């Protein structure tokens, strides 16, 4: 407090002016050996953006191929590989690590007033594991591709496919360890390193969502590990557990796979919900409505997510009893999701909403998650799913949730925290253009696919009936708009790095702790270890009076 008088116009006190985590040491080696959670977060950010670019290119190729009903640019085998690699890259290289490993790593310790995560070296190890896994996946692309779909279903993946399935699955296996270690680190950090006064109910809600995510990462990912290990052994040594000709059970693979991968859907969406909460409260200057409801609904979603995996398997030949149980349980996910939705709207109600770039993403999130979530109910209904299963309706649904919600929240978070991470402001106008094209292009591409799906267009088809061609072409045009939107966003952010105006410590007038330190923060995060006296979204008395 004594330093207030000498603080410069950007909020930096004299001792740390010009110092930050980016410039305290220099050189590639200092980055590769760093244990600073902020630098690790930045390296994750760069990696996931590369993964996003890779998956995006495959997406555009897939859409381009579907422009016409017969062959457009690639043959059927290449098409199978393109959609597999699009899915695998987007899921494993982008969405799963996107928010937790990049934004989470960077902001979790800052938001609780800690100097680092509990196990900084383990954090670096998890980044290296992620890279190693990514290398195996890239190796699979180079050495023959993968054409099994990102789900690696047997018996095709274990016996029939001639592509590099082992390399790809081993890559995912290794990345699973990375995910586990990140989750483990976050849980321990939140339990042990909260600053004095930072009680559980004073934590920003982003951290509650990360906590819930971490629970899933720790509990579910090992099952993916054993599944992929069994798949690799099945393929290499014919151990027979999933092979029907040897008495094995291919549907068992689907149980194993979805016991992880359904909760993994919530690994993807929960952090997005957390980011949206931060954005909506900050840019409407309103305390979060129903703090505890949002906090516990995150945990509830995490727990319920373990009970519903079989809704991916309604037509797999699983027992009718299972299907009925899973369909019933699936509806329970809607309760905490609805709780969140209404509390977000309650937060906005009566707030002084500023349509800043992050807020635009935040509101887009509400809209797109609304559509994505509600269409999920159609698919969770057993009788409806029998008709919609494996159609473009499903494709549209999960793109609304994965891309429309998580990726939009990720980019919203990126714009929200960009000044803090880089110390630079970005060109608001250009960012708005990027957002607008993304939003329009997204709905253009994927809302069309809801219609395609309800008319019976199956997913993953190379050739299709002529009657679907106009809608497919329309969707492909949308994907170009969407791609342009992201391109402009990237250009906007890259330009800000080069020539952006310096960012103040707290450009959005936010109340959470990460804004109470310099932009960008010093290596130790805070000059003085903070002592927390207010709730996360509570303003000091003199401000509100």
């Amino acid at each position, binding site marked *: 407090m004594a330093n207030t008088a000498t603080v410069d116009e950007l909020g930096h006190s004299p001792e740390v002016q010009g110092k930050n985590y980016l410039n305290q040491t220099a050189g590639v080696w200092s980055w590769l050996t760093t244990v600073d959670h902020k630098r690790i977060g930045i390296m994750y950010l760069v990696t996931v953006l590369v993964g996003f670019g890779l998956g995006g290119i495959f997406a555009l190729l897939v859409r381009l191929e579907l422009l016409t009903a017969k062959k457009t640019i690639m043959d059927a085998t290449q098409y199978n590989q393109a959609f597999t690699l699009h899915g695998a890259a987007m899921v494993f290289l982008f969405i799963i690590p996107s928010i937790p490993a990049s934004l989470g790593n960077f902001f979790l*310790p800052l938001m609780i007033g*800690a*100097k*680092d*995560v*509990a*196990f*900084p070296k*383990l954090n670096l190890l998890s980044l290296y594991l992620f890279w190693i896994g990514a290398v195996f996946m890239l190796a699979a692309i180079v050495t023959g591709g993968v054409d099994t779909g990102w789900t690696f279903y047997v018996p095709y993946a274990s016996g029939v496919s001639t592509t590099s399935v082992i390399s790809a699955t081993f890559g995912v296996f290794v990345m699973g360890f990375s995910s*586990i270690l990140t989750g*483990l*680190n976050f*849980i*321990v950090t939140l*339990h*042990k*390193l909260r600053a004095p006064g930072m009680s559980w109910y004073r934590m920003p809600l982003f951290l509650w969502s990360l906590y819930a995510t971490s629970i899933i990462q*720790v*509990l*579910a*990912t*090992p*099952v993916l*590990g*054993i*599944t992929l*290990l*069994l798949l690799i*052994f*099945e393929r290499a*040594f*014919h*151990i*027979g*557990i999933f*092979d029907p000709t*040897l*008495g*094995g*059970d291919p549907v*068992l693979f689907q149980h*194993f796979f979805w016991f992880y991968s359904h909760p993994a859907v919530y690994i993807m969406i929960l952090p997005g919900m957390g980011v949206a909460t931060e954005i909506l409260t900050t840019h409407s200057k309103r305390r979060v409505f129903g703090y505890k409801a949002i906090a516990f609904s995150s945990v509830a979603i995490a727990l319920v997510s373990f009970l519903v995996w079989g809704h991916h398997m309604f037509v797999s030949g699983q027992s009718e009893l299972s299907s009925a149980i899973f369909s019933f349980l699936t509806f329970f996910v809607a309760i905490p999701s609805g709780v969140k939705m209404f509390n977000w709207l309650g937060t906005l109600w009566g707030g002084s909403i500023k349509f800043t770039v992050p807020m635009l993403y935040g509101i887009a999130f509400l809209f797109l998650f609304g559509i994505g979530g509600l269409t999920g109910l159609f698919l969770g209904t057993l009788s409806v799913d029998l008709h919609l299963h494996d159609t473009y309706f499903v494709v549209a649904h999960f793109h609304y949730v994965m891309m429309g919600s998580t990726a939009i929240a990720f980019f919203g978070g990126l714009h929200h925290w960009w000044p803090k991470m880089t110390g630079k402001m970005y060109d608001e106008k250009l960012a708005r253009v990027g957002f607008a094209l993304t939003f329009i292009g997204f709905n253009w591409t994927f809302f069309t696919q809801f219609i395609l799906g309800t008319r019976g267009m199956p997913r993953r088809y190379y050739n299709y009936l002529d009657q679907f061609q106009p809608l497919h072409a329309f969707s492909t045009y949308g994907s170009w708009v969407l791609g342009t939107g992201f391109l402009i966003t990237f250009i906007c952010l890259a330009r800000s790095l080069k020539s952006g105006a310096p960012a103040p410590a707290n450009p959005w007038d936010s109340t959470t702790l990460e804004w109470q330190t310099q932009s960008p923060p010093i290596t*130790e995060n805070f000059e003085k270890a903070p002592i927390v006296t207010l709730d996360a979204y509570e303003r000091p008395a003199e401000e509100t009076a």
Partner: protein
Amino acid sequence: MSAKAEALGGAGESKLSPQFHVAHHFDKADTQFDAGRMGVWLFLVTEILLFGGLFCAFAIFRSKYFPSFVEAHHHLDRVMGGINTIVLITSSFTMALAVRSAQKNETKKTTLLLAITLACAAMFLVVKYFEYSHKIHDGLLPGGNFTAADFASGHPGIFFAIYFMMTGIHGVHVVIGMGLILWILLRNQKSEFSSRYYAPVENVGLYWHLVDLVWIFLFPLLYLVG
């Protein structure tokens, strides 16, 4: 114990575990110790669920191919399995005692106990080697590699698939555990551990006990009841 540490260490650096210091982001040593332990417990959760997948497969296929499982399990060697159970329990016991002696600053005793633990682990693997080579010789192998002829029931290959996956992954854990025990044994030789700082011994101990726990379930399920 801490009073003793204080007395020996005096102000500032202690003679016990001189190179130990609290990492800068923890407020005190106790928090750091607790954080490490919590991390290991969470890691053990992942181990339980990793093996859990195989236990799930065991339950399902046992129910599906019950006669095969009963017939196949008679081909496992109960004596060897029993010996290995006792060996692992003994190693768990010595590991627990090693943690205790580290807590009491008995460095030499810790080394000895860790060495015994290591020897037990090695013995476990030797017995496993004999079991495996016997199975391979008889063609009692997973799924498509199963060649033993004199089986009355339909799917013994599935039993051996689960047997080899379970014991194989467990064996890998034993090998990793041996590496970890060796690592703390060498560090202990350099007097790095004491009542003031013994977290690595404790945490490797927790891991080792989990390896024992898994075997406690594997042994009756695979060898005794099938």
